[in-house]
């Protein structure tokens, strides 16, 4: 189908938008209504002076009527139809679709492009796991060394009378191999970690916003000193690609700005120096709520706070809205986190401060001092249900860490057995 055959449809479209009757447009353009009707139904070619005249009456550039939708859009739509696997009856009307509903066509085409990108990513990742020669060599090295260690160790353990020369030799081998195993396993881990960094993490607005906050260490001197406003900070941040990410980051910074005004840095630093890290005392001193104090403490540089601090904020659905990571406390990147976090204990008892020592299940069972509270997002009103959010400050090293409460990150990666809060089975094997 030739490209210009749709000029008529575009004229009709435009005329209907303007609310003109066929006869009116025909009269203005100096042609008969029946001839215009033929043009509008793409039965007569149109060009030159007449096209310019009609475009003038309709108030558009002649090229808008003659060129219409982009060729690239049309070919993407064709691809989408071909890849869908179901017969599309109107394949021959793709130009018309793109011309009449350019917005919807773009939605469909960009959806198709996104699917193609994702499919490529999946292929790349699965190829990498099955075919990457470095990965295969690394795994082979680790397993071969483990095989050598296992054989040697069990010879030493199970053979009754072993000649001293053999015994010494096997001891020496064992020592060599264990060294090699620690090196090769470290190499393997760093290899696997590499794939997780950089560009391929981008794409989700939350992740972009997080990368932006992370880049500044969750501390913004310009907002502390009042020399910049959030809008300026997010405008040119290289981490923020999408508009959605920019608006998320701006909301976080606006909260930061308000908190910093309520508890200015110099006074807060003095308060911590004299009274220690006591959120309730600080709340009284500054006359502000506990949520402000907890958020504010997590926004302080480590040298002012005297220690590392993590923070999470969730809404009433339990979804994490804000994450400031802290060493040793795993936070799920996607999906819901562990319902045993004190954050959620606080969420079901709004306004009641909750303080718990917790230890995360896993290899390095470090204790954390967690302080959480839920607050109503807006001023409570008659006849309106309050909307709560909860915040939890996470400080490494539980204060008096006897009997810390065991928690996880999220069920899928949590090895804890017989947990009443378990939501779905773990992907971890029990023996690990």
């Amino acid at each position, binding site marked *: 189908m030739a490209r210009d055959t749709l000029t008529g449809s575009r004229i009709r479209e435009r005329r209907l938008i303007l609310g003109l009757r066929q006869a009116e447009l025909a009269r203005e353009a100096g042609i008969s209504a029946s001839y215009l009707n033929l043009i509008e139904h793409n039965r007569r070619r149109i060009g030159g002076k007449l096209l310019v005249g009609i475009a003038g009456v309709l108030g558009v550039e002649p090229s808008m009527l003659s060129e219409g939708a982009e060729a690239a859009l049309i070919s993407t739509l064709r691809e989408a139809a071909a890849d869908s696997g179901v017969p599309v009856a109107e394949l021959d009307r793709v130009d018309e679709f793109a011309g009449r509903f350019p917005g919807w066509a773009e939605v469909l085409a960009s959806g198709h492009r996104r699917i193609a990108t994702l499919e490529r990513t999946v292929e790349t990742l699965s190829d990498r796991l*099955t075919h990457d020669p470095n990965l*295969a*060599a690394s*795994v*082979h090295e680790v*397993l*071969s*060394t*483990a*095989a*050598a*260690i*296992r*054989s*040697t160790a*069990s*010879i030493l353990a*199970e*053979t*009754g009378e072993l000649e001293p020369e*053999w015994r010494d*030799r*096997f001891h020496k*081998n064992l020592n*060599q*191999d264990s060294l090699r195993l620690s090196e090769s396993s470290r190499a393997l881990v760093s290899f696997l970690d590499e794939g997780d960094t950089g560009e391929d993490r981008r794409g989700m607005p939350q992740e972009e916003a997080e990368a932006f906050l992370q880049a500044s260490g969750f501390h913004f001197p310009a907002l502390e000193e009042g020399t910049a406003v959030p809008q300026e900070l997010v405008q040119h941040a290289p981490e923020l690609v999408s508009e959605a990410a920019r608006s998320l980051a701006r909301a976080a910074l606006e909260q930061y700005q308000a908190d910093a005004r309520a508890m200015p840095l110099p006074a807060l630093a003095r308060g911590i120096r004299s009274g220690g890290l006591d959120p309730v005392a600080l709340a009284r001193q500054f006359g502000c709520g506990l949520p402000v104090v907890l958020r504010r403490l997590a926004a302080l540089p480590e040298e002012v706070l005297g220690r590392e601090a993590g923070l999470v904020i969730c809404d009433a659905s339990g979804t994490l809205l804000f994450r400031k990571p802290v060493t040793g406390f795993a936070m799920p990147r996607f999906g819901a986190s562990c319902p045993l976090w004190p954050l959620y204990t606080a969420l079901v008892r709004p306004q009641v401060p909750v303080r718990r020592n917790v230890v995360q299940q896993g290899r390095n069972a470090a204790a954390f001092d967690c302080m959480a509270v839920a607050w109503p997002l807006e001023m409570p009103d008659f006849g309106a249900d309050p909307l709560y959010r909860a915040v939890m400050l996470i400080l490494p090293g539980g204060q008096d860490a006897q009997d810390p409460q065991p928690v996880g990150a999220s069920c899928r990666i949590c090895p804890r057995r017989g947990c009443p809060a378990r939501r779905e089975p773990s992907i971890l094997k029990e023996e690990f």
Partner: protein
Amino acid sequence: MRARTGLSGRGRREEFLLMGRHVVLIEDEPNITEAIRFLLTRDGWSVDAHTDGATAVEVIRDANPDLVILDLMLPGKSGLEIVRELRAEGGMQALPVLMLTARGQMRDREMAEKAGVTRFMTKPFSNAEVLTAVRDLHAQAGQG
């Protein structure tokens, strides 16, 4: 030859079957070679070890062993190619080949099976697994 504890209780016929056995081990990991050599020697095997994949086929042909233990990933030539070439040679079709693989090499393993590997062992293996596999393979070859 001394009587070995591992063999006590075995029948006379089996004891006979286990005599004069010769294995060629192709493995580039010296400490695995040493451990397997020790184990199999104690079990009454004479063990020839070799590390290079490129010359493995010649070594095996010259040694004409009762059994071959072969690593999948070797310098010079992969275990897969070695098996293919062995199977193509005259007189080597029935030679039992035990292949050592690492986990995660399932795809290679399927190909190796087609190429004519008799049995697989996944690293890291236990010494008991090695001995069992070697004895089973030898017994099967003796019957066939």
